[in-house]
């Protein structure tokens, strides 16, 4: 049997390649690099466009003032929309994340390959592809029409419906990454299954679950269509999601961008920049949590 250990490590620098292979190698590298550039270009352009057009709207008043009622009125004010974006998506996360995580626990720890689990998994996959307006109309028919009022909470319900399949699938993937040895060790120490799940499996997967949930939140924060049909419109601060119509940044972008006036256009760009900044913060936060507490760094 020949030994795999050699005295000198193999030369992987590519200096000894034939000219043809070196050429092919370089061309491929260049092509891949170009593809990355082309893929990044639209993102950079969008970011640049939003930044350059939206930054003129930024000021302290922008974050605190009420929204001007008239499209033509110059000046800042998006405070209520910023607050409601946070409260509505926060409420949606509060509904969707616990249900989604415990759904994933069922799928991965209990359901495994039972027909019900398979069915739920398939449905979750299908639901991630459903257009967001469908969720909005569902909540409109099942909740808004029934209680006879548009509410911030209705928007939170619609967003929760949107987030739920994403949370379930990402949390399940994270639970699957938890090594079985941990479960066996816990069982060997006499812990029951629920105890193993609560104190071993979930904490181990918590970083991945949190980052998945925050990405779902970030996606939901940018939804326009379900908000417009379920939440309505307001110009003032509405911290209570159960009282009266509300608004979010995404809805304000749509509302202001469809008017021809300079003042409303500027507000639309400003709102877009604010929303991107919020989503960006969420994404960074999820990255930090994911990298700092990743499983392989234990």
């Amino acid at each position, binding site marked *: 049997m020949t030994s795999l250990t050699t005295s000198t490590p193999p030369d992987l620098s590519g200096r000894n390649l034939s000219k043809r292979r070196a050429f092919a190698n370089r061309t491929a590298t260049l092509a891949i690099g170009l593809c990355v550039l082309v893929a990044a270009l639209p993102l950079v352009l969008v970011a640049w466009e939003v930044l350059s057009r939206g930054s003129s709207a930024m000021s302290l008043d922008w974050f605190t003032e009420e929204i001007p009622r008239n499209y033509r009125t110059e000046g800042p004010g998006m405070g209520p929309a910023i607050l409601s974006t946070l409260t509505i998506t926060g409420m949606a996360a509060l509904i969707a994340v616990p249900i989604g995580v415990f759904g994933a626990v069922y799928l991965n720890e209990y359901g495994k390959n039972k027909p019900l689990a398979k069915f739920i998994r398939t449905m979750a996959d299908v639901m991630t592809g459903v257009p967001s307006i469908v969720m909005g109309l569902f909540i409109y028919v099942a909740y808004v029409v029934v209680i006879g009022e548009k509410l911030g909470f209705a928007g939170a319900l619609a967003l929760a419906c949107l987030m739920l399949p994403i949370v379930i699938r990402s949390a399940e993937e994270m639970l699957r990454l938890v090594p079985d040895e941990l479960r066996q060790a816990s069982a060997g120490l006499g812990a029951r299954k629920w105890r193993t799940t609560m104190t071993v499996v979930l904490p181990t997967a918590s970083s991945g679950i949190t980052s998945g949930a925050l990405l779902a939140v970030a996606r939901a924060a940018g939804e326009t269509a379900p908000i417009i049909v379920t939440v309505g419109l307001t110009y003032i601060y509405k911290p209570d999601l159960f009282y009266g119509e509300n608004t979010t940044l995404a809805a304000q972008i749509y509302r202001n961008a469809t008017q021809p006036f300079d003042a409303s256009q500027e507000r639309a760009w400003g709102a877009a920049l604010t929303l991107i900044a919020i989503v960006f913060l969420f994404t960074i936060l999820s990255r930090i949590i994911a990298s700092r*507490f990743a499983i392989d760094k234990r």
Partner: protein
Amino acid sequence: MKLNRRTIFGTLTAGALAMSMAACGGGGSDDEGGSGDLASGELNASGASFPDAFYATAIEAYAEVNPDLMVTYNATGSGTGKSEFGEGLNDFAGTDSLVGDDDGVEAGSFQYIPTVAAPITVSYNLPGVDGLQIDQETLAGIFQGDITAWNDPAIAAANPEATLPDTAITLAVRSDGSGTTTNFSKFLDEATEAWTLGSGDTIEWPGNAVAGEKNTGVAQVIQDTEGAIGYVDLADANEVGLVTAAVENADGAFVAPSLEGATAALDGAVVEDDLSYNPLNAAGAEAYPITAPTYLLIRTEYEDADIAAGVKEFVEYLLTDGQELAAEADFAALPAGLQEQALEALNSTIAD
């Protein structure tokens, strides 16, 4: 830094809970403390997007008059506004079209209140040619694709002084279902013999049409395309700075779109008993022929007396002081007679 996972989960949960508690705490106190005889609280309206700019102007001005009554107008489109009215989701609705059988609004449960009207302009982009005059049959020919070049004899006949290039005509039309399209096609359908495409909120346009979303999108198409012609409301046409054509009216005069022309059209229109009226192709030498009406729907019965009082107060404001704001927002005020009728209808629908 070494953080325990359970600490983090705990902190996150606690934070989320605290946030939701804070969210449930505030609000809900606006009902108290109405000042004197003015109404207070919150009115939610939704509907047509066509008069949105006017309502937004009026709502802002009204907030100065009575800051305790907050009115919102959500421009969801006439159809949605009517169905939400039927579901009881809004306190009053805005609509450009009359209530039909399948709109979900019960007959007898509403009253039309005309508020303003606005001319729909025929705007075009043809460098060096302004003040184009278009007669009704030619307009139909252009928009159904029979006339495809700007130097067509039919266009030249009405404009003997203009030098028309042989640029191809591009139609700028709406991609979304729209009350503007309804009124524009209804005008062509009623006024001309040549028009064969019918009327409705969407039309099967001929092949040389380019669609834009909402009035802003159509205005953009016209601005960007040499040889384009399209129908846009006056507010958007003015804002973008489009060149508008004078259109032949029922009396055979060529009238450029203006607010005075629209008010003249309202004067010439026949008002029905339910206050609906049709100002399209109205009589009168000054009348602009493509003038679109818009209405509010108010309920004949409100469950909540405060809301009824609020609706009455705000609509009364729209019909009186609010009318002076119309011109500022590029909308035509109601003529005095119709304004009087609308106020009467409001007072008899919502008794004090």
